[in-house]
């Protein structure tokens, strides 16, 4: 199969998957008890049937389920998530502002995590201390859940030492403060990425180093340093990039624990609060963004892999 045909097929499957996820979540939120109108009126003592009916009509909940599902799909096709029940604003706008926070977290964490991972991974095959660091510290880092690490950072670096703010978001108009706020959450998120990438880099380098052409290169008298930089590292990075992409794909929806610890208004906490009041448009929209991101990254990794290794596409 040609690569373009392969890519087109993967994309089509990806679209079908996005739709499947939407339908599953749409049906699941109907099955779950709890009603958006009642949750919204929970602070009001008297809930008259009239207001409930009026709000249900306004939210379109008076329509039969299949009609609502079709309507949702029609809106989704035009990338319109509807109007949030609790905020009376377009869900897309709310999700957009939250997505920016999540993306900023994910991109910064991925960047620092991957950079540190590659650095420590290649350092580990070159020096004894690097080797020790990656093989001893790596598993420990991977064993610390994000919420534990985050809480400890807040306790030690914010409350006890007072070096960094404990949480919250500063506007981008104050760039220094904005970045200062992000130090601890990004550190928390990037540590496990760094540990994973270091491990993969290490294995990959060890494998490439044993190949014939590397030995040939050394035999031709090129320096060890040049061989490492130009031949080994470059070839070893292919699997590293694949793993990085996959790490990134799952990350966008997985920042919720860190958002919780540091009080950041990201997609995860939006999803938690949207579910707790059954704000259907927000739930559907947030799930769409998270799953589409995950699926897109996977397709990109697949296609990229097919590009590098044409045999994969033929399978």
């Amino acid at each position, binding site marked *: 199969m040609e690569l373009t045909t392969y890519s087109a097929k993967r994309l089509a499957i990806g679209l079908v998957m996005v739709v499947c996820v939407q339908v599953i979540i749409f049906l699941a939120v109907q099955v*779950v*008890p*709890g*009603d*958006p109108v*009642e*949750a*919204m*009126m*929970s*602070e*009001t*003592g*008297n*809930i*008259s049937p*009239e*207001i409930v009916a*009026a*709000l249900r009509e*306004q939210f379109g909940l008076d329509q039969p389920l299949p009609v609502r599902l079709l309507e949702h799909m029609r809106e989704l096709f035009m990338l319109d998530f509807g109007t*949030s029940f*609790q*905020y*009376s*604003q377009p869900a897309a*706008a*709310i999700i957009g*502002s*939250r997505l920016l926070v999540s993306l900023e977290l994910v991109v910064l964490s991925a960047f620092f995590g991957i950079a540190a991972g590659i650095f420590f991974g290649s350092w580990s095959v070159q020096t004894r201390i690097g080797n020790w660091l990656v093989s001893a510290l790596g598993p420990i880092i991977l064993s610390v859940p994000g919420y534990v690490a985050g809480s400890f950072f*807040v306790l030690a670096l*914010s*409350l006890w030492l007072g070096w960094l*703010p*404990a*949480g*919250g*978001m*500063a506007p981008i108009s104050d760039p220094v403060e904005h970045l200062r706020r992000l130090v601890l959450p990004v550190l928390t998120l990037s540590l496990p990425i760094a540990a994973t990438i270091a491990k993969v880099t290490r294995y990959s380098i060890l494998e490439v180093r044993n190949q014939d052409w590397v030995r040939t290169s050394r035999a031709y008298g090129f320096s060890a340093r040049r061989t490492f930089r130009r031949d080994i590292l470059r070839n070893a990075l292919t699997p590293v990039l694949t793993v990085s992409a996959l790490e990134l794909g799952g990350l966008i929806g997985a920042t919720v624990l860190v958002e*919780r610890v*540091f*009080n950041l*208004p990201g997609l995860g906490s*939006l999803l938690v*609060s949207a*579910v*707790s*009041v*059954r704000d259907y448009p927000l739930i559907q929209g947030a799930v769409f963004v998270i799953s589409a991101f995950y699926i897109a990254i996977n397709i990109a990794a697949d296609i990229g892999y097919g590009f590098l290794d044409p045999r994969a596409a033929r399978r």
Partner: protein
Amino acid sequence: MLSLGARVGPAIAQGAGGTLVFGLSANVGNLVYGPSRGAAQFIVNQQIHRGLVKFDENGTIVPALAESFEAVDPSNYRFTLRDGLSFHDGSPIDSATVKASLEYLADKSTGAAIYSALSTLASIETPDAKTVVVKLSKPNASFLDYMADPNAGIAPAAALAPGAANWIGAGPFKLQANDSGVGLTLVKADTYYDKDSVALEGVRFIFYPDSSARTNALLAGDVDMIDFVGWEDFERVEADSNLVLDAVPGPFVYTMFNVEKAPFDNPKVRQAIAHAINRDNVVAAAFYGHGEPLYGVPMSPGNGRFDPKMGDLWEYSPEKARALLKEAGVDGLKVSLLTSSTYSFFRDMALSMQADLKEVGIEAELDAPDWATYTASKNGGKYDLAVAGGAPSVTGPVYLQAYSIGGPASSFGSYGYDASEIVAHIQAGEAITDDAAARTEYMKAVEVIRDEVPFLPVAQRSQAFAYKNTVKGFKNVSGFLSITGTGYMIEKAKVE
């Protein structure tokens, strides 16, 4: 041109009060007219909107949009509006605007929070553009309290529809930016009737739904003030000499019973629960010791319509509870205890009660779902026992009505309870102007509450605001009004 310049001049000079950065305890992404959406929304409402009257720092009713008001008798109120009132967009407010708003709030179908106060509305007369006369079919001595409620602001016609956005008001500040999920930026409104006494240039609300994050933000100096200080954080705030902890006895927590089915259809079993709960433990575990146990109905300080005896109805006595259970002929009870995992004090209160119930031989299984499921279960009567929170918007005993009337009619009351006897006594009290005479009537209602236990008050929690000591002129209003009245104090504050 000259006069315009003269008006701009002093406004800038008075803007020396700075901008108050306020760490708010919930996301307020949207305001709608009528329904109540909780304490954080009240605070925002009170900056944007304004009603005929409001509360002052002592909880007294004072004029707001109405320049003066007069209770001709308990069912007849006359308001005189100020001159030149207008909304933030410049559209004028006259007696017709007020009439439209009040009629909207009196319409049950709009879900208005103060509907019950206006349910007896007979007519609203507007003899001229400045005069509003409200006539009630039944006397209601607490009517003015309801008119000062944060949900009773006067709103423009465009906001008078269920779910319509309600951001344009007659309050001291107007919305400049709504940064959804992050915060709200409000600036001083030059349309406000009392703008000369507002020192602040604006208020910036930043949402911190997490309680410890909110306190951290204050300790770090990110915000000038926070509401709803977590009880476990009181000492941290007090330890900082640059901060003020402003705590008052506030709203209360209580227990609801499903009286539709056994065992809580039996008043004796409900009485047993009233004696079984160790209120001190609830205060210690759920409120970190910052609260007061309740052995009767909660009372507003300084309201002459309460009798101190109303606060002394049941005592903590597991023996008595066991005896009552035996008398009721129940043994080895297994019940469900509904609470919500969304608020830790709800859950902790239920956990504490669970231990007390076990002490008297009742096995309570905790049901701790998220908020929407909790609300649905509570309103639908899917519980045996449930914990709930109460923050009445009126100071007088009339508030007891909403907590006594059973669900599904009132979502504050025990499912299936018929409160007609209590309501009759309270209504009788409301018709009496004289406090002492009214007390006797209210006491009759409270005696029914004592014997029937339609709901069980457990503790009054300490409600605190905290702020930097550079914030002056602010005060947390004591009692229930900490929730519904304190928001009116922000316009009096300034940041030095």
